[in-house]
């Protein structure tokens, strides 16, 4: 087996704003294996979207490296970058903002193709029709404008567009959170089918833990720009080791009237990335916080189930 398809090594992103330096992402290291689905999960503002944007080369990391099949993405220029752009595509959260309202669906889907190839008109039409068929839309949809579709259908169009060039890695940024429950399942199933059929690798960003558990093979739990815990989804969900992961899981209300929620799992509220706590970033909310947590950042340890916590692994519940 070859190495990971995508590797993040100490990736850090700081923004300088008027109010100070926002430490959005702090030294994140992850590896995404081919044909797997890696989920980045965390609460709003935790930096998961910033990570995705760096992987998509929409932003540059302040420090660290992002490697795609061993090549540093940040160093890519010209043809190499263009080649990378061909391999990596994205589906965004809001199906209303992700499609240009002034272009026909056919044009929207053809856009990535035209950025890399010069197919004939007929060939292009054929390819558009093909991907539309894959996402379950009729070929006639190509002639319509985005506003003529519902949210779920738009998300299908966005998936078709990302699929048109047959990329190898797809970044899914909250792909269903703007959709209704009954539509969500359609899209999730579609994404699963596509992955199976084309052998895609997914990097999905989500805040819905149930969805993550259901959909991903690996998961990284992120808190205030740092990876708290990462590993195979089954292991992480079955035996969460980090107090934050535990708190998250405990806080999810289940569609079960007999389930009792516990509030004590995480205290207070999330701190600001503008002035993150020293030491372990979770320590002000952690029920198990110790002195060392206030001063020293915990190192990540374990394999494949990695946790960044000072608590001795053995003493973890």
């Amino acid at each position: 087996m070859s190495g990971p398809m995508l590797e993040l090594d100490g990736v850090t992103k700081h923004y300088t704003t008027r109010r100070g330096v926002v430490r959005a992402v702090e030294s994140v290291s992850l590896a995404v294996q081919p044909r797997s689905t890696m989920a980045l999960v965390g609460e709003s503002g935790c930096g998961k979207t910033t990570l995705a944007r760096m992987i998509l080369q929409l932003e540059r990391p302040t420090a660290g490296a992002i490697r795609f099949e061993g090549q540093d993405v940040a160093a890519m220029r010209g043809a190499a970058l263009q080649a990378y752009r061909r391999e990596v595509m994205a589906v965004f959260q809001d199906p209303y903002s992700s499609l240009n309202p002034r272009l026909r669906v056919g044009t929207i889907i053809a856009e990535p193709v035209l950025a890399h190839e010069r197919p004939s008109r007929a060939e292009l039409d054929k390819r558009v029709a093909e991907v539309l068929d894959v996402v379950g839309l009729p070929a006639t949809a190509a002639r319509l404008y985005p506003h003529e579709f519902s949210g779920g259908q738009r998300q299908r169009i966005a998936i078709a567009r990302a699929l048109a060039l047959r990329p190898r890695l797809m970044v899914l940024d909250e792909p269903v959170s703007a959709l209704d429950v009954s539509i969500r399942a359609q899209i999730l199933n579609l994404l699963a089918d596509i992955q199976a059929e084309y052998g895609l690798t997914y990097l999905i960003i989500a805040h819905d833990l149930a969805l993550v558990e259901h959909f991903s093979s690996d998961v990284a739990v992120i808190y205030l720009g740092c990876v708290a815990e990462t590993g195979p989804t089954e292991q992480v969900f079955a035996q969460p080791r980090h107090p934050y992961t535990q708190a998250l899981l405990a806080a999810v209300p289940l569609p079960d009237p007999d389930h009792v929620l516990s509030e004590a799992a995480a205290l207070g509220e999330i701190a600001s990335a503008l002035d993150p706590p020293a030491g372990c970033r979770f320590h002000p909310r952690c029920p198990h916080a110790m002195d060392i947590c206030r001063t020293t950042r915990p190192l990540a340890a374990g394999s494949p189930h990695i946790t960044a916590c000072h608590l001795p692994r053995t003493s973890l519940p």
Partner: protein
Amino acid sequence: MLLSVRNLQTHLHLRRGLLRAVDGVSLEVAEGETLGLVGESGSGKTMTGLSLLRLLPKGSGRIAGGSIQLDGQELTTLSEAQLARDIRGRRIAMIMQDPMTSLNPVFSIGDQVGSPLRNHDIARGTALRGAVVDVLRRVRLPSPGERLGDYPHQFSGGQRQRIVAAMAIGCTPRLLVADEPTTALDVTIQVQIINLLRTIQDDTGAGIILITHDLGVAASLCRRIAVMYAGQIVETGPVRAIYRSPSHPYTQALLAAIPRLGAKRGRLTAIAGQPPSLIDPPTGCRFAARCPSRMAKCAEAPPVVDLGDGHSASCWKLAS
């Protein structure tokens, strides 16, 4: 019965045509009871909530029929002034979805929390401050006395939702309409607000209508559930009955379509197609087009079938 709604019809007069946002909804809320109004976007659950206070979009929204009775008093016939004076904020209060936008950014929270107290003559003058501090204490806002002069942006999302709750419960209303009160919050904060609502209910004994699309939140907070689809209630009943033995095909499909934490990984059961337009809704069962057990009869309006224990559903399948 604290609140009794019968055959409520709420219409929105839009450019595209007449939208029947709420089409014949009946529901009841008892004192100290939490009713969960569950449905997808556009199902009419929010409009139902707004209809109770007649806070419909100006110009286009109108209650076209039915009755709303609070403690036996008919609300649909009250004048706007009577509603503002006696009902809104006084006997029925509301909590909205987004704590970031439901507080006025340019007024101090002392002013805003005090506003309903002043308007309804609960407290005035020097007593007002004490009353405001008291109500903020009840929603567990830390050190309320020192923060009256602070502005909404100086609080976190969870704290803001507490302040909104304080505004709502200041006049000890009989009924609280909470419209997606936790949707905009992160899960760890969501728990805190769910618990707050529970505490409020224990303290005041008010009835609560919880409007949500999240079946998990509804399960954790409600005693009874009403499931809405396309402007109508398709199933209603005690929370256990709904989750353990859903009877309407839509409720069943909804529960099957959500991934559950700890459940086995596998293919989700999707509901095909999309909800119908409410401008020109189909006659008969509105879910029929997407229903796996659709029958010929479904072209006619389905009857409400009583399944016992306050559990009922509108479906031909159950009638036969």
